[in-house]
């Protein structure tokens, strides 16, 4: 039922999958996420939504080959099916006309920023998107983000495209131009979101981040995804995933994200063994 309608490789190890899920597509809003499960043996994996098409009944996700399960999903092809596809989950972004807003996407984080930027632009905002990646060849969804934004600034760590440096350098450039930025969405690796909120805290610009902790059910039932926001414990799956970045305890969130690193490595090693012809 939840089959891949379209697949596109965006960069090495990064795939875009458009998945048939009409009931989810009918309801999903920017900022929400889905949980997928490939088959009986698989984990439940939370994934952000890059796009949705209510008429076609599809949800588009973007996934990077970084671990056991993500490697398998990245390798899926058109026609392949997910056994389970749950959503929409989490609270939608607060879309309104703020004036000028900045949407920052780092690495894979560009995907979830996409529908938010588009909705903010449709709501009348002047949307300046700042996209970051390690290098030009790893930058994804540039065309889509240009269409969804009023302006786009690119930052690459190696300087192979746009500003040399991090998304914070791209943001600095935007602010230097004198824009009166009313709100910022920043989505990407935890370390990037932390850098952005550290930077914007002193400037007093409201900065919303989207948290991506470990999850199991995604409905508030297990509490695996708890994070600390303003010294209060929140469940990212039902209270978020978006939070006021200036209140999030990123150090705690990063430590929690590392809890299953050993198991993840074990699982991935096993996958690689199997791929090499199963010499065990």
């Amino acid at each position, binding site marked *: 039922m939840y089959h891949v309608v379209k697949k596109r490789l965006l960069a090495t190890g990064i795939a875009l999958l458009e998945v048939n899920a009409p009931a989810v597509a009918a309801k999903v809003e920017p900022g929400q996420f889905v949980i997928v499960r490939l088959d009986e043996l698989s984990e439940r994996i939370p994934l952000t939504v890059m796009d949705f098409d209510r008429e076609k009944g599809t949800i588009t996700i973007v996934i990077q080959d970084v671990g056991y399960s993500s490697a398998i999903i990245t390798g899926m092809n058109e026609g392949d099916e997910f056994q389970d596809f*749950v959503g929409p989950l989490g609270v939608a972004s607060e879309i309104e006309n703020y004036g000028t807003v900045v949407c920052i996407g780092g690495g894979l984080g560009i995907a979830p920023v996409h529908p938010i930027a588009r909705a903010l632009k449709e709501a009348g905002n002047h949307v300046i998107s700042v996209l970051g990646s390690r290098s030009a060849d790893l930058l994804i969804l540039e065309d889509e983000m240009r269409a969804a934004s009023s302006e786009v600034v690119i930052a690459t760590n190696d300087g192979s495209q746009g500003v040399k440096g991090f998304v914070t350098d791209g943001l600095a450039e935007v602010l230097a131009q004198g824009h009166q930025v009313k709100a910022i969405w920043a989505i990407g690796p935890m370390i990037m979101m932390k850098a952005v909120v550290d930077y914007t805290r002193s400037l007093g610009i409201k900065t919303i981040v989207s948290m991506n902790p470990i999850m199991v059910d995604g409905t508030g039932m297990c509490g695996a995804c708890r994070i600390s926001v303003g010294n209060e414990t929140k469940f990212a799956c039902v209270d978020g995933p978006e939070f006021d970045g200036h209140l999030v305890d990123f150090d705690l969130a990063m430590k929690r994200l590392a809890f299953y690193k050993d198991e993840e490595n074990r699982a991935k090693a096993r996958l690689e063994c199997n791929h090499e012809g199963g010499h065990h």
Partner: protein
Amino acid sequence: MTEKVESTKKVKIPRHDMPCQEPQVRAHNFEEVALGYAQETAVEEAKRCLQCKNPKCVTGCPVSVMIPEFIKKIAEGDFQEAGNVLKVKNSLPAVCGRVCPQEAQCESKCILGIKGESVAIGRLERFAADFGMQSGKSEVVKPQSSGKRVAIIGAGPAGLACAGDLAKAGHAVTVFEALHVAGGVLMYGIPQFRLPKEIVQTEIDNLKQMGVEILTNQVVGKITSVDELMENGYDAVFIGTGAGLPYFMDIPGENLNGVYSANEFLTRTNLMKGYKFPEYATPVKVGKNVAVLGAGNVAMDSARTALRLGAENVYIIYRRSRDEMPARKEELEHAEEEGIQFRLLTNPVAIEGDERGWVKSLTCLRYELGEPDASGRRAPVAIKGSEFEIPMDTVVVAIGQGPNPLVTTSTPGLELNKRGNIVADPETLVTSKPGVFAGGDIVTGAATVILAMGAGKKAAAGIDEYLKGK
């Protein structure tokens, strides 16, 4: 007179023990602990039943199972029919035979129990239900369609019991389940070694054969809402979303790596089959020393699960004494036999972590029993200066669950109490919203499987009545 002689004789026959895996063996596997009666034992045990004309046991059963009748069939050797009799009132007998607190329900009312030991009703229920399941000849009678449609939210014990009775009454039933499998707590919570998932699945498949439609991956409150269901042609809705919101203790260190809610710990292990990692991709880890905070059935399940996952020391940490522990006696005994260590009159005050943010130890305070409190139980009082630290790798918080707000907050017009539970009429289980019924933990707060099933059945009767009037 002969009856009296008979009963005096029967009182003297001891109740038959349940054969179990040896504690030292079962503590290291996930196979079912209780093995079930052999046929001869079941017949012998069934013959102990006095077949009271006015059976008290039935009054102790939340779903009014026809207890003397099914036991009589076992005594006669007609096991198949015993299973059929069970099913008249109970949609999930193989589950109830395993997880009901019979000692506090049917068996507590058994006349034999006054002078001796009550009939082992639960063990006989399990026997008859399992026989019916293994023979594969469970009866499916499809009643005439009423033309009415009912949506049930949540495929746990309340929802499934409600679905079974509504289907029997001829209504078209669709169950919306948030997780990827139906069963609710029977699948994600209660461990394999106490309730094999294959048994739950068979019971659910029976419901499907009766015509119940079950849709998984449907998070009501997100993908659809109660109002939308009513607009889309459902004549009534039953909300049985359970107690799916884990409580934490609110002590320092609860967000350290290695602190699990019991819900997460059990879900990873049972639903996601983390005990088979890496064959199954969801990991769960326990380390050497595990503390389970709380002393209810969920705490016992968590502790025994931790042991089976390879923990060396598993502690139950509870601030009251043994007499106040809310877990079933049988669960306590099983846990103790397996080597779970009880630290009673002990309350955790903080979880200490290392520099990586992982659990390192648990700091506790010793308590003593003081005067009775509002609940009538002697209140535990902290002993000043009694803090002590136990090295720990994992802490499982099993102090209870609250109502999950996803459905209730997305349903305008639904009256809730101050704890967030749905207010429902105790007889019909109708809520403040016309056509919407609710039952189980979402109404009562966290309770037992059988009470939820009883509520589901009650609601089914209430819904049936409501639909007749429509």
